[in-house]
């Protein structure tokens, strides 16, 4: 450590554990995936020679690749719009410290405490026309005549999955937005009311602009999470019916564990990583610009 000031040495000592963790658990696996994406990667013994660009061309040549990309984007748009809108509505509803506000904040957040795989299994059971109660309840209420096939058509499978995801995450995103809402000074609202501003004007001119950083963070998490969607579709639909709900991450899983093509799976992973990096960079840029303005 010769030549370093005591302050710099102390800083290095603080940073080293994190640097080691990041290197071991993030950088090294990432490098390994990058190497896999360029090579043949048999399960046990065998030649691990270069297999580039075949791994990448095989990944994009799959008949499922472009439909999966289109479906993942469609799912991301729907989930992001619905989730963001609902989370904002819930946050506004429990913003004030009214009686029972705490109770409702807890109720809205509770699904967020459940693991996504567990929640998916729960909904799979509810949706099942063979063993689930939802369909028979609707029949008994006279709302439907025949058992409902919640996951039986491409549209119903997509919407049923979106419903699960919104139920699971709306409360979590509500919490982020609630923190943002509570950071807005009350004086601003009072001054606006004194000036005779309507509720809509206050929302548009004060709440939305000052909530922008929280909305941007929610958007970032929501878009990234949706582009990486896997558990819910793997458990609820397995990509069906008729391959209509195959996501990009499901393709990675399929290449790696169904077809045992680890090199192609790694190539797909690198493509997804690159897209996510680009998207996040754009979102951060937008966020910074918003902050500066």
């Amino acid at each position, binding site marked *: 450590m010769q030549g370093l000031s005591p302050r710099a040495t102390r800083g290095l000592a603080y940073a080293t554990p994190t640097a080691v963790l990041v290197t071991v658990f993030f950088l090294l696996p990432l490098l390994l995936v990058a190497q896999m994406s360029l090579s043949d990667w048999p*399960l046990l013994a065998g030649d691990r020679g270069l297999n580039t660009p075949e791994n990448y061309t095989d990944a994009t040549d799959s008949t499922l690749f472009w439909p999966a990309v289109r479906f993942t984007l469609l799912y991301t748009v729907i989930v992001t719009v619905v989730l963001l809108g609902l989370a904002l509505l819930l946050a506004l509803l429990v913003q004030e410290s009214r009686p029972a506000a705490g109770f409702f904040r807890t109720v809205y957040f509770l699904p967020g405490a459940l693991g996504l795989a567990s929640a998916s299994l729960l909904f799979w059971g509810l949706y099942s026309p063979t063993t689930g109660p939802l369909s028979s309840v609707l029949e008994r209420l006279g709302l439907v005549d025949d058992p409902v096939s919640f996951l039986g058509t491409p549209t119903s499978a997509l919407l049923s999955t979106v419903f699960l995801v919104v139920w699971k995450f709306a409360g979590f995103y509500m919490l982020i937005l609630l923190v943002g809402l509570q950071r807005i000074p009350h004086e601003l609202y009072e001054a606006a009311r004194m000036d005779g501003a309507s509720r809509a004007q206050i929302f548009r001119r004060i709440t939305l602009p000052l909530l922008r950083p929280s909305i941007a963070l929610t958007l970032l998490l929501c878009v990234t999470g949706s582009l990486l969607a896997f558990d819910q579709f793997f458990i609820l639909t397995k990509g069906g019916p008729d391959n209509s709900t195959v996501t990009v991450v499901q393709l990675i*899983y399929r290449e790696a564990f*169904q077809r045992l093509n680890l090199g192609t799976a790694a190539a797909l992973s690198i493509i997804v990583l690159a897209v996510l990096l680009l998207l996040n960079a754009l979102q951060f840029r937008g966020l910074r610009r918003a902050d500066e303005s």
Partner: protein
Amino acid sequence: MGSTTGPPGRRRRRVTAAVALLAAASLFTACGSGDDGSDGGGGGGAKDAKGTDDGATLTMWTRAATRPQSEALVKAYNASHENKVELTVVPTDDYQAKVGAAAGSKDLPDLFASDVVFVPNYTSSGLFADLTERIDALPFADDLAQSHIKAGTYEDKKYVVPHTLDLSVLFYNKDLYRKAKLDPEKPPASLAEWDAQARAVDKLGGGVDGTFFGGNCGGCGVFTWWPSIWAAGDEVLNEEGTAATLDSATAKQVYAAYRGWVRDDIVAPGARDETGTTWTGVFPKGKVGVMPMPSTTLGLMPKDLDLGVAPIPGPDGGKSTFVGGDAIGISATSKSADQAWNFLAWSLDDKAQIDVVAAHKDVVARTDLASNKHSEADPRLVTINQLVADGRTPYALKFGQTFNDPNGPWLTLMRDAVFGDGSKVDKDNEAVSASLAD
């Protein structure tokens, strides 16, 4: 040497970059040298037909679909041997993924059972140890279920033995047959009779349905539809397992029967969505007339359910079955091959096969034991045991990715043929062949 004279900040950055490069290079080298393969622990060692029983602890995986049979064998072995087998049951749908991941990290258990149709893929990938000499040394080697032995033979070496045999057979509800004025002792002998009897039971109404099948489950399709094609003397794959003939006239006749049941609502609700997770749970409720089922579920049926068993027929007669179930081998990376073989050899001997497997109403893994005290007491078991000779176990290296993968081409063919555009079957069959030859 000019590069060392830069300002301190730049120098530090360069040192950091050099360290990162070195780290990356060493990583690549380390990864590149890691392909020494297995040390072959599994195949070597003593070739004693009984293996070694010295108190070793063995790890074993099996899939949930055949859990009761594996558990019964392990329990009986642990109670009578020094060695102890620790059994892990893996969800059926996750089994391939778990084996693939474990193989990649050389973390396979000592013993692992596999759906017999995946075995060719595993043997060709080097996941199992060579058991040729050990199997040949068994006094009953020629009596082992040859469909499983054949599936586990790769380049003239034998890698697996049969573990549990699971045959597809028709189960029919005799109570519902009586109510529908059908003869409960006359199950369908052709697909046409199956159709007529299912429709007759379906007419009872009140929540009773004619039949059921897993309409969103590729594995269920091969297990229960293909026997109807084989029963007519037709093939579904070429001998090498690299091309499909699932667009034959017989195959289309079979699809037409299922399509008719869907069209006329003869099928219990949920068939279209059934991914295979709950398809065997419908018949035991007593509301379905006749449907193909795995023979391993016979021992699990409710005691008060009066059911009959019959072979799966072809369109105009004949009979066949899919000889499925699990084959088991010693993993190529096991360090306890002699002990693991002790379990396998014991599991195939007379006592285990009769007192454990047959007593559980399951199909024995040896043809010389097909007739035993348990099967003779239950005529349904006789029907099932006799079917082994008429059954098939298809062989294809790419079986899993073609037929069991929920996003694979066979499920597309199945669903087009029964729920969708039936005219796409020829084109879908080409996609199946392309996947097999991939």
